[in-house]
């Protein structure tokens, strides 16, 4: 906020107005009070209210995370079910080998490889940015333009890879375990068709733990998006955060962290409610076995 030629008096005055001279507990309680009102102060670097900055960047991150989560959940579950049912076979082995790569390769390496392959060599997808965006007033979206859609492919796939491989392995393990249970055996003994056994009886049970993990992982996706956004110069919150770190822009950092914490709590809350809806054993607690 200060330049080379700012005088010492001006610096002191600025410290005073920013409240930096107050004792820590005063500063902290002021932060809590303001935060509860949605005010996180003014960015030291950009000199604009932090809440305004976050609202501006939020759509980019949310769109990226939602698309990645969808990719991770849908392909992860599909491939997980496939590999869980067809335990042997070339395709299963291939998927598992690839999933090992997904778990072990860091996001930024995958991102750079993708950029090199699709943007530099093949030249079919943009290497950075969000493309053209449409401003809906409260939300800026890249979904409505061709360049916006093209731009989201690489970053969202990069971001989803880790979660996807995680979900593949989880669903696979769950499916394999459930297909060994007594009630699946009993269903077989009753002549229930294999398709119903796999997709109705087994999959439904197998998805219960996936929901928990997926919930927690959406939070992780937002956190991970810092790296992906930096690699792809994606104008989202993560990118904003990285810049803030470089400039020790504390108001932005604290606002971002509070926001992430809030998202985690909300997601876990939603997961608990989903659990209640999906698993009847939780729903009727207290109404214990009778008869």
């Amino acid at each position: 906020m200060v330049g080379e030629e700012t005088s010492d008096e001006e610096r002191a005055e600025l410290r005073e107005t920013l409240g930096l001279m107050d004792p820590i507990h005063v500063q902290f309680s002021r932060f809590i009070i303001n935060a509860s009102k949605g005010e996180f102060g003014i960015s030291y670097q950009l000199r604009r209210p932090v809440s305004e900055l976050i609202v501006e960047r939020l759509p980019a991150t949310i769109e990226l995370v939602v698309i990645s989560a969808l990719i991770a959940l849908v392909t992860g579950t599909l491939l997980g079910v496939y590999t869980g049912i067809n335990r042997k076979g070339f395709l299963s082995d291939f998927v598992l080998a690839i999933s090992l790569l997904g778990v072990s390769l860091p996001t930024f390496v995958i991102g750079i490889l993708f950029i090199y392959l699709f943007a530099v060599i093949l030249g079919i997808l943009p290497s950075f940015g969000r493309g053209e965006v449409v401003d809906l007033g409260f939300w800026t979206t890249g979904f409505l333009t061709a360049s916006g859609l093209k731009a989201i492919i690489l970053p969202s796939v990069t971001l989803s890879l880790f979660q996807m491989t995680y979900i593949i392995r989880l669903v696979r393990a769950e499916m394999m375990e459930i297909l060994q249970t007594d009630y699946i055996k009993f269903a077989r003994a009753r002549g229930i068709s294999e398709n119903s056994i796999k997709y109705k009886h087994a999959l439904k049970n197998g998805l219960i733990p996936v929901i928990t993990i997926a919930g927690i992982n959406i939070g992780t996706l937002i956190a991970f998006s810092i790296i992906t956004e930096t690699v792809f110069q994606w104008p989202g919150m993560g990118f904003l955060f990285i810049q803030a770190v470089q400039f020790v822009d504390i108001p932005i950092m604290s606002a971002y962290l509070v926001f992430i914490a809030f998202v985690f709590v909300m997601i876990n809350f939603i997961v608990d409610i989903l659990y209640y809806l999906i698993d009847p054993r939780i729903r009727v607690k207290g109404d214990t076995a009778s008869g």
Partner: protein
Amino acid sequence: MTFLKINNLSVDYQMRKETVYAAKNVNIEVNKGEILGLVGESGSGKSTVGNAIINLIDEPGKVSSGSVILGDLNIHENSESIVKYRGNKIGLIFQDPQTSLNPILTVGEQLIETIQTHLKLSKEEAKNKSINLLKEVGIKDAEVRFDNYPHQFSGGMRQRVVISLALCCEPELLIADEPTTALDVSIQSQILDLIKKLTKERNLAVILITHDMGVIAETADRVAVMKSGNLVEIGETKKILTNPQENYTKSLVSSVPPTNKKISRFVIVEKENSDKKENNIKILNRWTKKGIIDQDLVQIKNLSKSFDDNFFTESSKNSVMAVNDVSFKIKEGESFGLVGESGSGKSTIAKMIVNLFKPTSGDILFDNVCITKIKKRSELMKFRKQIQMIFQDPYSSLNGRLKVKDIIAEPITLHNPSISTLDLNNYIYDLLESVELTQKSADRYPHEFSGGQRQRISIARALATQPRLLVCDEPTSALDVSIQAQILNLLKDLQEQLNLTILFISHDLPVVRQMCDRIGVLKDGKLCEVSNTEDLFLKPDHEYTRELLRLMPKIESIYN
């Protein structure tokens, strides 16, 4: 008329090195309206045969030869055709009703799906059929229960649902794989009655797979005995149980604890060690044997234990009284039996006596000292040394990461830290020999032993501190009858020679009759009656005891 004909059926498991036969050249015939009992100990291949009939063998096992003829159909012609008969012509019931039903589908959904798979019925018709079926198997308010999830049913009710599922498409053959093993006696007799009734009414052919000779005696018309994949003997139930031809069948029948009389020892027909009856108990030298004084070693006074559902709300109205105002005494040197069904609080009492649970109220006196009020750890240790416990499941009660000698050494060094290594090792060897295990066992790990041998290790561990009271919580429920007979013999010998006092907890009345001098009967946490064993069996006082005795499956019923 022969309805089911199994010819030369073999099932094998292709392992990397060898082929294991789970069943070999089995020939069985079953008629309509008949219950065939299939008995054998664990690993005998009885369940394998049941599953092989509908070709439901887990990988890598497969039916390698033989044919299964149902009526005039060869149902093993090809692997696709068998699927058509599952549920349709052949119904199957599994052992554990807790795990046989899909937890996230309602009972109705599971019934309708099964019915619609085989019969061309609309959803409405299938629903009506299901509700009638639920009524037929004895479920009240079937219309309401139809929409319930499996966990809302009790164990017995759940097994009824399983039966209705197995029967919903009018099969002609029913295979029941240990249908009552996981259930209490009272529920067991209801389920067996139901199966008998359905067999008659529907003219079913039934294969009843079980390890329980009492169940066989009371339900089966004919019985087939299996041992390590081979059919040993098949014939009329009465003939097989009263006049078995094969040695194996003889030993199996003689291992079953009789319900109508008390015998001093179980006759072990098989096994080479029948000659060494004179089991020298080497630990006797170390045992500071106390003469039996005519006194009460354990006194339980108004003992209660409640488990609060909720830790935070202190309201006691939701709390479950697991044990409710129970009082009894155990004399020094006697065997006291506690019997009751699951949930009767018998294990809770055992855990309070060994001080694993704190009683909610009441006192436990051991040797005239109230052990529930002891605060000091060193004081408590003195009593822990004198009271030892043997648990039900020999698989989970031994630490798999420790060698047998370390398992047994642990309590010894805990109570006697100054013991020398040489002395310790000798003591461990003595203990092992006392429970009829070899010295070599000391350097092995628990997983290398069978269930019966593990229970012997548990006993050796319990004896290591030279206890005066041995609390045995269902010590043989997880074991086969012949192994059970050996373990019970061992416990009897040890008690006799070491003057042990035993608290023997079991749901199995015949076993308790053989083991105990006096018996207490528990129901829902309350003590119904305490009396001498023979009095209890011959002229029970309490209504509930009479009920239990009436319902217990009796192998002797075959003589009537």
